[in-house]
């Protein structure tokens, strides 16, 4: 439970941080994923660059129909922010479903997406929201879609020396119903399965459906087939069941001590149906 020796720097500005990262430093945000690994010596970074003291990374702002969430914004801030609750309730629901209050008080948006845990909650919501991740590197900034950002288990499209600067999500249009439901793994709190749903209706039909799934696969993904099945339907109980049955289609489901692949797939459909029903009832 004692990590290997490391250096620690807490820069005040992002520019300073970038310089330190360029020379091999490793970002430290809330430390909720990184520190336990270091204590077991499964991770042995030589130099930690703490992003926590950088003021202009901790913010939630609205601009041009989008919400911008700074990398070091804690899960609790996202969960409790009136702005996020009002304008992107799916994201605050996902934040509120993470771990427990202690974790949410310390863990950050940037840390969670950069870590890309296959059972993390944000990826489901970010996929359903078609979020954008703004990445800062030595050469400047680039923006990638959530779909392109999450590559594999614990693997993102971040290059070395790059950091997540912010996450951008759309402000929901009036009449969009959303829901995030998860079955937590009882020991860790991570998702065995988590399903994030956004639904819009018009003229008695579902006009838009976005479904993000986490916990089931190596990365959070969008359930395209289920979305297609839902869009254009009346959103009846039967439509929902049929669509929900498709969320795990073609997925090589994870299997571990806590849930077999079959059970996970089954849960994905059950939670999808419930989340879709909940979202549709608000749309």
């Amino acid at each position, binding site marked *: 439970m004692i990590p290997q020796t490391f250096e620690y720097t807490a820069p005040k500005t992002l520019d300073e941080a970038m310089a330190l990262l360029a020379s091999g430093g490793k970002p430290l945000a809330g430390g909720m994923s990184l520190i336990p*690994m270091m204590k*077991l010596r*499964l*991770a042995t970074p030589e130099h930690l660059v703490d992003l926590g003291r950088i003021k202009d990374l901790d913010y939630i702002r609205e601009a041009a129909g989008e919400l911008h969430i700074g990398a070091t914004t804690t899960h609790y801030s996202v969960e409790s922010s009136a702005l996020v609750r009002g304008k992107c309730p799916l994201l605050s629901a996902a934040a509120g479903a993470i771990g427990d209050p202690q974790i949410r008080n310390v863990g950050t948006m940037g840390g969670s997406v950069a870590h890309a*845990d296959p059972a993390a909650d944000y990826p489901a919501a970010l996929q359903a929201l078609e979020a954008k991740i703004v990445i800062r590197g030595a050469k400047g900034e680039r923006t990638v879609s959530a779909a392109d950002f999450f590559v594999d288990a*614990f693997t993102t499209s971040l290059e070395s020396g790059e950091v997540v600067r912010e996450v951008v999500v759309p402000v929901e249009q009036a009449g969009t119903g959303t829901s995030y439901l998860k079955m937590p793994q009882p020991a860790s709190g991570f998702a065995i399965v988590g399903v994030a749903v956004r639904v819009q209706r018009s003229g008695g039909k579902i006009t838009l459906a976005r479904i993000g799934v986490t916990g089931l696969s190596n990365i959070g993904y969008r359930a395209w087939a289920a979305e297609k099945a839902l869009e254009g339907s009346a959103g009846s109980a039967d439509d929902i069941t049929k669509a929900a049955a498709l969320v795990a289609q073609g997925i090589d489901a994870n299997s571990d001590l806590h849930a077999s692949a079959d059970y996970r797939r089954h849960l994905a459909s059950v939670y999808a149906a419930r989340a879709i029903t909940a979202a549709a009832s608000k749309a």
Partner: protein
Amino acid sequence: MLARAIPGCEGLEQTGPDEYRMKMKMALASLSGAFEGKVKITDQSPPSSFRLLVEGSSKIGFVKGEGLLKLTPSGEGTEVAYEGDAQIGGTMAAIGQRLIDGTSKMMIKKFFEKLAAESAS
């Protein structure tokens, strides 16, 4: 070819017929470790199948994998099927079910992608 296909492999050194000493670096999100071990190829029936034994140990534990690889030509490329079993021990065994399943799947996938790429070239 093997050296390039094994993810993180930093060098293979032949120690006997179909036996190699391997240095491998695993780096995955925050997890990192330098492994030393050996790779052995047995039950070769070229070109369709062989058995691969990989053993590595490090401060954070050990891995032992054994797998039967079946290569079947299909159209332009080769289809690779894998059947195997991996053992993990030491601290690594305790890092969490979530991590192990995700990671091993990914390593295997990477291996085959690379193997396929290497065999194609």
